[in-house]
């Protein structure tokens, strides 16, 4: 029987999840007329659908009970009774903001692709709406099988978005993206099944309370790691990301950086840390090492890039390295910092890809050397670019600062060197971002085609306005965001400590 324990009083999470799919079906079946009309109508239909979803998701934002660490807005319907698998949805402090991030970025992407996508507009808009369903569903699912379905389902629309509307090497990038992430996920499928067999249920809340033996945890952790590390992506399995970013259309890069990269870190937070406390602690130094390498190595690689998108892609790997450090500190500051960094990176990196998209739409190249002196011709653009560049570097007062700062505090409690090396990311970040900004905005215009370049259009301002507002809001008053996950993170850290204590006690009895 459908069970709703829900403040909203109606299945709001299902609505947010499936409404985009309905929109996609409407676009697929209802639009008639010549190609131009269909394209225009598809754009508007997709925009209105995604805006409606955004408004609905704001209900979550308003009525979410910040004091409750557990899942809220729960829905539960029997789905596969023979296997005790249900269609279960719910959000807690960790996932609620990611739902909002997804629903916010989707209309922004649709707007940004308004003129940039010229072929197969209908299919593009459909893919994006289907992608939104998968992303939101993944963050809302509180059943493991359901989660896995959405987690892998994301691959289908993203594969098509990169492969159909991407750049010259799009086929290579799309196939690489698909196979890399699939190879990771299938191992998670086995871990899922193993936990299912062991615990007899796939309910995530129950699995969090189930104690798996330390030996089993090790294997489960490795399987999860294979899946999530590819998604994050962690060094050395990050190589699909620069290819995917460079070849994807702007909107694809935005959603890739904004939401898809968060799926891996979200997986670590949702599964690895709470369900496998012993293995997580055991493997933490390993994760720290990989993360530190990611931070330093990819930052240096970013410094040497000639392609704007590739540079930002590598910077994403570095920023996500900070996130994984934060998660595995297992203290409130570290995990909160990681969550905040994920959100701020979701906004800032997406915005930077949009910033690149603006000039790419005009000049059709992403080569840094082809630009220079844009500050003269595009003052508004230079301002926007600077804001996001500073946020990416982690300037106090912007979103980027809070997350990195919290993670550094959290990691200081673990190890001084970890904090120092992890913090190197901020310094190196400043180096490659300022260098990028200098080469593009400052100097004199040397290329003739840049002389006639136009500043941001109204549509582009509309796209950037909410992102600018959020970046500043998150930087100046972070509490309005941290308050959402404080309770959940607190409970998670407590649970982790308790679980470790239990194992140690058990070991003490055995010896």
């Amino acid at each position, binding site marked *: 029987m459908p069970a709703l324990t829900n403040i909203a009083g109606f299945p709001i999470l299902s609505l947010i999840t499936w409404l985009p799919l309905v929109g996609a079906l409407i676009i697929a079946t209802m639009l008639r007329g010549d190609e131009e009309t269909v394209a225009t109508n598809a754009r508007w239909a997709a925009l209105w659908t995604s805006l409606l979803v955004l408004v609905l998701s704001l209900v979550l934002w308003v009525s979410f009970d910040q004091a409750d660490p557990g899942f809220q807005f729960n829905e539960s319907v029997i789905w596969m009774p023979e296997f005790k698998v249900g269609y279960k949805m719910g959000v807690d402090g960790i996932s609620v903001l990611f739902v909002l991030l997804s629903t916010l970025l989707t209309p922004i992407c649709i707007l940004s692709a308004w003129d940039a996508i010229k072929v*197969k507009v209908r299919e593009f808009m459909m893919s994006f709406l289907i992608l939104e369903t998968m992303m939101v569903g993944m963050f809302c699912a509180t059943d493991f099988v359901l989660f896995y379905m959405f987690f892998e389902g994301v691959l*289908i629309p993203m594969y098509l978005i990169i492969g159909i509307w991407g750049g010259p090497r799009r086929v290579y990038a*799309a196939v690489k993206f698909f196979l890399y992430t699939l190879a990771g996920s299938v191992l998670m499928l086995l871990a899922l099944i193993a936990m299912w067999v062991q615990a007899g249920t796939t309910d995530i809340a129950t699995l969090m309370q189930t104690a798996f033996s330390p030996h089993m945890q090790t294997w489960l952790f490795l399987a999860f790691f294979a899946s999530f590390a590819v998604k994050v992506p962690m060094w050395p399995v990050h190589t699909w990301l620069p290819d995917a970013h460079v070849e994807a259309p702007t909107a694809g890069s935005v959603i890739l950086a904004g939401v898809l990269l968060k799926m891996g870190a979200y997986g670590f937070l949702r599964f690895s840390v709470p369900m496998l406390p012993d293995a997580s602690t055991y493997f933490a130094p390993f994760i720290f090492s990989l993360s530190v390498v990611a931070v330093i190595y990819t930052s240096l690689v970013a410094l040497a890039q000639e392609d704007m998108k590739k540079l930002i892609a590598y910077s994403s790997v570095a920023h996500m390295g900070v996130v994984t450090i934060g998660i595995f500190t297992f203290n409130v500051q570290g995990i909160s910092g990681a969550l905040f960094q994920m959100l701020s990176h979701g906004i800032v990196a997406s915005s930077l890809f949009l910033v690149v998209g603006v000039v790419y739409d005009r000049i059709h190249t992403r080569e840094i050397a082809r630009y220079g002196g844009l500050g003269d011709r595009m003052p508004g653009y230079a301002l926007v670019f600077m804001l996001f560049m500073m946020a990416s570097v982690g300037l106090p007062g912007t979103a980027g600062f809070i997350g990195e700062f919290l993670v550094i505090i959290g990691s200081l409690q673990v190890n001084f060197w970890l904090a120092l090396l992890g913090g190197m990311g901020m310094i190196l970040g400043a180096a490659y971002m300022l260098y990028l900004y200098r080469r593009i905005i400052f100097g004199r215009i040397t290329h003739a085609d840049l002389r006639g370049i136009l500043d941001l259009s109204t549509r582009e301002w509309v796209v950037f306005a909410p992102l600018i507002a959020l970046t500043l809001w998150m930087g100046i008053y972070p509490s309005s965001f941290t308050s959402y996950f404080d309770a959940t993170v607190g409970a998670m850290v407590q649970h982790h400590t308790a679980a470790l204590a239990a194992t140690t006690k058990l070991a003490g009895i055995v010896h």
Partner: protein
Amino acid sequence: MNWTLALPEIVLSVIGLAILIFGVLRKQDSTLACTMFTIGGFLIAGLLVLTRTYGYGFHGQFVKDAFSSFNQILILSGAAIATILALDWNKQEGIARFEFPVLMLFSTVGMMIMASAGSLMTLYLGLELQSLALYVLAGFARDNLRSSEAALKYFVLSGLASGLLLYGISLIYGFSGTMDLAALHDLLVQPSAASPGLVVGIVFVLVGLAFKVSAVPFHMWTPDVYEGAPTPVTVFFATAPKVAAMALLLRVMGTSFASLVGAWQVLVIIVSIASMVLGAFAAIGQTNIKRLMAYSSIGHMGYALIGLSVGNAAGVRGTLIYMVIYVFMTAGTFGCILAMRRKGRSVEQISDLAGLGTNDPALALALAVFMFSLAGIPLMSGFFAKLYIFLAAVQGGLWTLAIIGVLTSVVGAFYYIRIIKVMYFDAPAERFDPRPVPLSFVVAGTGLFTTFFFLFPAPVVSAAQAAAAVLFR
């Protein structure tokens, strides 16, 4: 002598004979009428199966239970789809004759007998009835060299496999004194009854049946026959006989030799792993889509066999669900392949699909759904097929199989998404000819099943559960 149990088979045979007489006596071309009658016969047989009159008939030679009904419904669905698809194609290729649906019908009768075999003798009779019709069907385009070659190849190799099977049966009979499946089960409950000769017999039976499901290393005929046979016959080959042979395999191993799991389990595991690996890797280099589907079906049989190697009711349930999903997604894929015609001639190269996403978005969407499903990507039914199978494997502690299974599925995904790549990312080639209406219906129906299976898995799962409960008691 409870002959009413065999009513579906008897009715279908009588209808077949009637159609044959009708076809011979009628002066004009009667292909359309005969096809319609055949489909009507399948429908009637299906309804009769659904009456669920269960029990043993003909002194235990014949058995009707939830397991046989489940498989018979599936066999009839596969056969009906292939018959519908054949109608327009045969006309276009100039091989439309009324014998075609009749042969399909008799082959289907054979398969239904296979599904409800209660003794090794019934099993063999059903198998031979099925195979004889299939030999003729494979060579139905008799002016086509490849079709004749396929028929001959299938005839020779299948004959060999039948011989092995028969040899195995005779060994089993010789060492146990009975051919009745239930009696064999009761006999083998005592471990002392399992003499080495009997085990050798079981191995021969296993080999014979592995040939029929085209599992490695008895798969050699599959790519050639799939490629050479007229495509509607390939649809048939890929669906109904696979179900029937798998049903036999499950029935024989799960009823009679259930207590000897230890003796044959390792064999099934090896066959399963080899099929998955070969199916995944050998398909990569293919350029002909029918050959690709042949290797794909070899791989899928490997996955389905995981359920058998688990050796319990949960495993059988996994296999049965897998077969249902497999039949519909494969039939749908072949429906799309049948639509690949240019200027009145069928084309079979993967590169011919280039730009289908632009030329025919509906067909491309359907084929994309089938490919994602065959690759086992979630939301599509193929994912659930693999999920249930791997669940059974992990429950049974067969980690090696599960790990190899998921890894080969990634390799498999490579060539499935390559087809999507060709359809959507490559520059458009020439358009295909307009699709016949029945084909569009079949593709749409199987496509909807494949896409929306995830919404209502319960009916299929509970039916499979009931069917599996009959075995491994």
